[in-house]
C-alpha cells in the first residue's frame, strides 16, 4: 500500500512542481509584456508595427532604384519593387502582430489551417 502510494505521490509532487515552474517561466516574459503594456504600451507597439511596415516599403524602393541604376530599366524596377515592398511591409506587420506564421515555422498543418482560420 505504502509502496504503491509512494511513487504516485512523488509523481504527483513532481507534476505539481513542473506546473509551478512552467507557470513561473511563462510569467517571466509575460511580466516584461505587462511592463510594456502598462508603460509605453500602445506607443511601443505602434512604433514597432509602423517601423516594420515602413522598412518593407523603403527596402523595396531602394532595391528597385538600385536595380534600375544597374540595368537601366528606368521606371519599371522601381514600380515593381515598390509594390513588392508594399507586400513585404504588410507581411512584416502581420508577422509582428503574430497573425501569420514566422519564417521558420512551416509545418504544413499550420499553413493549411491557421491563416484561413484567422481570416
Amino acid at each position, binding site marked *: 500500500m505504502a509502496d504503491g502510494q509512494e511513487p504516485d505521490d512523488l509523481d504527483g509532487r513532481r507534476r505539481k512542481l513542473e506546473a509551478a515552474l512552467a507557470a513561473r517561466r511563462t510569467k517571466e516574459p509575460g511580466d516584461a509584456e505587462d511592463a510594456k503594456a502598462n*508603460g509605453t504600451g500602445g506607443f511601443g507597439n505602434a512604433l514597432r508595427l509602423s517601423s516594420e511596415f515602413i522598412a518593407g516599403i523603403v527596402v523595396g524602393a531602394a532595391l528597385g532604384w538600385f536595380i534600375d541604376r544597374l540595368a537601366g530599366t528606368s521606371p519599371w524596377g522601381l514600380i515593381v*519593387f515598390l509594390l513588392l*515592398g508594399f507586400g513585404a511591409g504588410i507581411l*512584416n506587420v502581420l508577422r509582428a502582430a503574430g497573425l501569420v506564421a514566422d519564417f*521558420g515555422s512551416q509545418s504544413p498543418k499550420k499553413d493549411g489551417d491557421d491563416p484561413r482560420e484567422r481570416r
Partner: protein
Amino acid sequence: MATDPIEQFQISNWIPIEIGGLDFSFSNASAFMVVTAVSASAFLYLTTSSRGLVPGRLQSISEMTYEFIASMLREAAGSKGMRFFPLVFSLFVFILVANLLGVFPYFFTVTSHIIVTFALALLVVGTVIIYGFYKHGFGFLKLFVPEGVPGALVPLVVAIEIVSFLSRPVSLSVRLFANMLAGHITLKVFAGFVTTLSAFGLAGAAGAVLPLAMTIAITALEVLVAFLQAYVFAVLTCMYLNDAVNPSH
C-alpha cells in the same frame, strides 16, 4: 544655447585622424562607445571576480543578466543556437549600457545615431546569412519558399519573402534609433519649457513646475525604454538566429 533639442546629437571630432582619404576621426561618439564597452566589461569583470558561491548583490546582477540572455536564446533558437550566446550577450549589454549612459545629462547617446544601430543590425543579419549558407548550403534558400504555395504564385511569394527578409535590419535599426532619438528630443523639449516659462516672472516659475514634473516622469520612462529596447533587440536577434540554425522545421 541649451534650448535646441537637436544640438545634443551633434558629432564633434575630438582627435582628427585621416587614413587614405577616409575619416577615422575619434569623435565624441567613438569616445562614448569606448566608455560603454569599458564600463560594461569592467562591471562584469569586477562583480564576478570574487567568484562567490553565494553571490553578492552586484554579482547576482551579472549572473541574472547571463541567465536572462541564456534562457531567452535557448527558448528561441534551441541548444544549437547557444553558440551565438557571446554575440547576443555582447549586443544586449552594449545596447543596454549605451542607452542607460545616454540618460545622464550632457552624455552622448550612441544608439540615437542610425549608423550605429544599423551597423549592429547588419552584424546580426550578416551572421544569419553567412552561418546559414555555411551550415546548410543552398538549403538555406528554402527559407524563402513557404510550403503549400501554389506553383504559379511561388515567384511572387519568394520575391516578397526576400524583400521582407532584407527589410529586417532596417526595421531593427530604425526601431532602436527612433526610440532613443524621440525620447531624448521629448526630454529636451520639456526641459526647455522649464527655462522658458521661468523667464516670465513669478507666475511663469509657478507654471514651470508642470513641465519639470513631466521631465522627471519622462526620465523614468527613458530608463524603461532603455531596458525595453535592448530587450527587444536581443529577442529579435535570437529569432533571426533561429532561422540560421534551423531554417525549416
